[in-house]
């Protein structure tokens, strides 16, 4: 076979691979959306799930997903951002720094179910939080920290050195420079990364299985007192999130409309994740335009 023919064949195979990849995305999305969107109605989004009967909705699960996400972000962002600042600004090359880097790497590549088991051991049993919003959020914090650390470090490293030197030349202390000059300048790129990681946290299920639990008490959406047991804001009640719900319905659901609920929930989940993704993308573009001055 002449090398030209081989070339042609090989390149066609490569293009085919890319087409397969794009095809997978298109068919996945269209399958989920076509199957699911017809099931989404206002009623589906605003009724509680029913364990036996048909016609259950996902109101509580949807709320739990967002609530766990928000608590996770409140816990993760300060710790993750300052961890990133440490690596970008304070860390001196040496054993300790490389050890911290290894730790971040390890945290990033742990299977999420291992994080869930750790959460069950520590937060659920040892601290006695039971299956609760707070246990779930703490486990997800472990899961999400390395992402935020990395995003922050990259954001700080992308800044030009002039900004830091300018601050220091004005006689500001290092911390003051970071707080008032570098952090605001790096903020947009950090925010983009945070939104992307929010999509990941929103869809996470294995880490929540053993920490946030598989059930939700009867939530009373007119009771916003965070201490009362059926309040949506209560941190110490169990909370089944949307992605856990999809899994639970498919493995042990006995209601007659399992596939309707699963497909509808999957569509809602995917739409939310897509929105996070699009939002982060639009933000990134806007910032890029602002900084390049076009």
């Amino acid at each position, binding site marked *: 076979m002449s*090398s030209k023919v081989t070339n042609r064949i090989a390149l066609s195979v*490569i293009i085919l*691979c890319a087409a*397969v990849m794009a095809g997978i995305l298109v068919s996945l999305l269209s399958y989920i959306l076509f199957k699911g969107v017809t099931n989404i109605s206002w009623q589906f989004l605003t009724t509680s799930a029913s364990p036996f009967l048909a016609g259950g909705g996902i109101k509580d699960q949807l709320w739990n997903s967002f609530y766990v996400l928000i608590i996770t972000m409140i816990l993760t962002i300060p710790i993750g951002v300052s*961890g990133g600042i440490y690596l970008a600004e*304070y860390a001196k090359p040496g054993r300790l720094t490389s050890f911290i880097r290894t730790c971040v790497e390890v945290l990033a590549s*742990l299977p999420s179910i291992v994080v869930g088991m750790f959460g069950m051991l520590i937060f659920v049993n040892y601290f006695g939080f039971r299956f609760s919003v707070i246990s779930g959020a703490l486990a997800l914090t472990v899961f999400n920290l390395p992402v935020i650390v990395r995003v922050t470090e990259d954001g700080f490293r992308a800044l030009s050195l002039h900004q830091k030197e300018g601050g220091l030349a004005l006689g500001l202390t290092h911390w*003051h420079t970071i707080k008032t000059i570098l952090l605001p300048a790096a903020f947009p790129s950090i925010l983009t990364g945070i939104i992307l990681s929010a999509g990941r946290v929103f*869809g996470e299920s294995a880490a929540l299985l053993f920490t946030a639990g598989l059930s939700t008490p009867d939530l009373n959406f007119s009771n916003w007192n965070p201490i009362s047991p059926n309040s949506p804001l209560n941190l110490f009640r169990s909370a089944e999130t949307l992605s856990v719900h999809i899994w639970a319905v498919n493995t042990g659901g006995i209601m007659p409309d399992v596939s309707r609920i699963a497909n509808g929930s999957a569509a809602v989940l995917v739409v939310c*994740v897509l929105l996070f993704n699009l939002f982060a993308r639009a933000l990134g573009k806007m910032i890029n335009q602002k900084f390049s001055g076009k």
Partner: protein
Amino acid sequence: MKISKIATADPASRLDNNAKLINEKGLLWRLTDRASETRGKMFIYSSALLMIVAVIAITLFLMIQGLRAFVVDHLNFWTFITGTQWYPDRTVNPSYGAFPFIFGSMAVTFLAALIATPIAIGTAIFMAELAKKWGTKVMQPVIEILVGIPSVVYGLIGLSIIVPFMRQHFGGSGFNLLAGAIVVGIMILPTVASIAADSIRAVPDSLRQASYAIGATKWQTIWRVVIPAAGSSLVTAIVLGMSRAFGEALAVQMVIGNVTKLPGSIFDPSATLTTIITLSMGHSTMGSVLNDALWSLGFLLLLISYVFIVIIRFLSRRRNA
């Protein structure tokens, strides 16, 4: 404290004291400012330390809990690892042989890598070599969206498309090892592709130009020059994908069939380390032998993910050297 005492004791020199107070206040402000410097530094350093604490705590606690099965319940480590009989519920002589799960995890991981690697590397070459404009405009967003799709959704798709397909064409229930591997393979595709594309982009252009200059075709350049040059980073991409496949739990659990026997072929239902943990953890009481055995499996999972990390580190060190 001292100032206030003076101020109340001697009202005649109040004006003087006021000036002193202001001066004192200025000092105070600077003091708090310095405190803010220390405070900020403290917070930053403690956050960094928290990463170390988290890793050590995870390893330590899982290890303590994972070794209980051998230390407290006196299971034999060797029969635990190599035994093929998993009958924890048997009242007479319950047996804990975890080999089917270890085998299942390995099989799913390797099959998934086998499915994902050609397509992912092909896509990476397409993005980085053939059509750079299309690559960044179309394929990059495609990959990013695919990475973002939650794993349960992949599991659901597997359950509603792949499992019925298997049932029709290969008989049985349709829940089998291959279905699990396909679902995970598709799941790790975008991860492998995007890292592979990065490593191909990192190959210096001079190599390509040299290859074209001696009359090589595009494919010859890719096959003989670019891929060997990107070598170990491509392997890193695949290993990273495998470590993700190894740790995936719910998506696999939904399609693999969850049978605790050793599978005879890839069309038999089976189980993996992660699936047995997700399934049995909820039903077992804390401190029972079954529960301890599950924690041991969890610890094993942690150890194997450490092995993956070490391999990845080794590969990237070789690349840097």
